């Protein structure tokens, strides 16, 4: 496993706070979040539902402005979304009025026609959607739509991918397959990945580091280094140790 602890810091979050006005009161969602993500690192942000982790990702991506603090990427403050950093929604971000091809080529309109066609074909093959080029999203399964969205993101060759519970709406088998594919793509394309999830197992299977958030207002409770090489053995002692550690951190008895 390459040592990412020496890679330069790609993304820095400093003193980030977010509060929403709700009726008369103010709801504090995020409080004093500090985090560094290194270039090429895969970081999972883990927290209970509704803790504000999606809000955090939306701020980092530039869709929302924080109440205080700042996010910078390569030393430059983030003020708006940018095609160098693509946000992958839970398959809902696929444009239903475009075919698979049209979606994957969405961010490529500056390329000459031939280069665009090649790039689209490359990413269709990469996510295994050959034969579905002309299909519309409503004709595809949830997992295939998710692949379209990932391919659309990768096609513009971004440095950073933001994934907001990308596999949450999929069935458990498809979810496992998609995790494997995401890791394969991440290793092949060397992206920095920020991945939001509420699934402890998912975070330990995927991440270099897991950032555990507390309930509202969310703060960083702990950052867990996952020192396991890929592909990970999900029955190894170390894997179980790390997983159980996080279970305890979040305060759940994992016996049913």
């Amino acid at each position: 496993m390459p040592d990412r602890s020496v890679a330069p810091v790609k993304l820095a979050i400093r003193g980030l706070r977010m509060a929403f006005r709700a009726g008369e009161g103010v709801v504090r969602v995020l409080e004093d979040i500090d985090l560094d993500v290194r270039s090429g690192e895969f970081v999972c942000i883990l927290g209970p539902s509704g803790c504000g982790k999606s809000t955090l990702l939306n701020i980092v991506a530039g869709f929302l402005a924080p109440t205080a603090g700042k996010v910078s990427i390569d030393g430059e403050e983030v003020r708006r979304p940018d095609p160098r950093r693509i946000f992958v929604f839970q398959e809902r971000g696929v444009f239903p009025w475009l075919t698979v091809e049209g979606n994957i080529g969405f961010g490529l309109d500056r390329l000459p026609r031939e280069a665009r066609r090649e790039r689209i074909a490359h990413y269709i093959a990469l996510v295994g959607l050959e034969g579905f080029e002309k299909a519309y999203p409503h004709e595809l399964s949830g997992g295939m739509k998710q692949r379209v969205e990932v391919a659309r993101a990768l096609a513009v060759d971004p440095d950073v991918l933001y994934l907001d519970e990308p596999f949450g709406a999929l069935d458990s088998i498809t979810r496992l397959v998609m995790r494997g594919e995401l890791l394969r793509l991440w290793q092949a394309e060397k992206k920095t990945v920020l991945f939001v999830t509420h699934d402890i197992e998912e975070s330990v299977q995927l991440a270099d580091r897991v950032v555990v958030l507390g309930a509202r207002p969310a703060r960083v409770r702990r950052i867990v280094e996952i020192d396991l090489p890929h592909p990970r053995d999900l029955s190894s002692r170390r894997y179980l140790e790390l997983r159980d550690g996080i279970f305890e951190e979040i305060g759940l008895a994992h016996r049913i």
Partner: protein
Amino acid sequence: MKARAGAALDAGDALLNCPRLAFGSRKSFPISAGAWIVPVTGVVLFLLFWDVAIRAGKAPLLPGPLAVVRAIGELLRKGFLFKHVVASLFRVTWGYLLAVVVGVPLGILLAIHRRLGLALAPLVEILRPISALAWIPLAILWFGVGDAAAVFIIFVASSLPLTVAAMSAVRHVSETHWNAGRNFGLTRRQAALRVLLPAILPRLLVGLRLALGVAWLVVVAGEMIAVNSGLGFLIIDARNAGNRYDLVVAGMVLIGTIGLALDVIMRRLERLRALQWAYAGSEGAP
């Protein structure tokens, strides 16, 4: 963007929210030769009933179907049929096109521009319940008796539903799609063309179809007062000039048939494959 307007603005939504009712599920009603049997039988039975009832009755309340067919034949022979139909379609085309050109952009603007929307929404809501027929005196005052008055009435009647439909369509664009567009670095202009327009098109088409129905509904009323040609004029003239009720009913049948044809054409557009996502129920539905 997210704020929902009053319930009145969502009139067209009921249609989209129960797609099976509004658009017909292809599974339960396959568009095939066999599907025509039931409706055609219904029409034939109705005509038979009509004919028998007229023959049996002592003082006929209206001409029978054969008399109406003969009346249509008479109109056709004398060249009136073509003349009146074209006159009506001409007025509808102009009034409706004008309404589309004004009403749709206005609706989009009111939905996108929050403050402007808040300022003008009450005005739209007050104008909406006013029947287009109430505008006839003003139309005649402004445009005199003639085509322009009829076109204006059609414009008034069909532009407001279009404005409301466009507003509702824009409000239903998913925030995720907006954000995805921004993420890929689209300018406002590009976002309008590549996200907004395709996203609102299905809802807008429903609005366009309903508004065309309204335009066709209103042209008859306009022609009864403001002009001396068209199907509306035919009906009123047939009565005034000699109590030719066979011609009156012939005019009614023509109006209904052409209205149906217009509706069928608009529904065809809704079946385009690229639009099916909005009617299929799951993907991108609000």
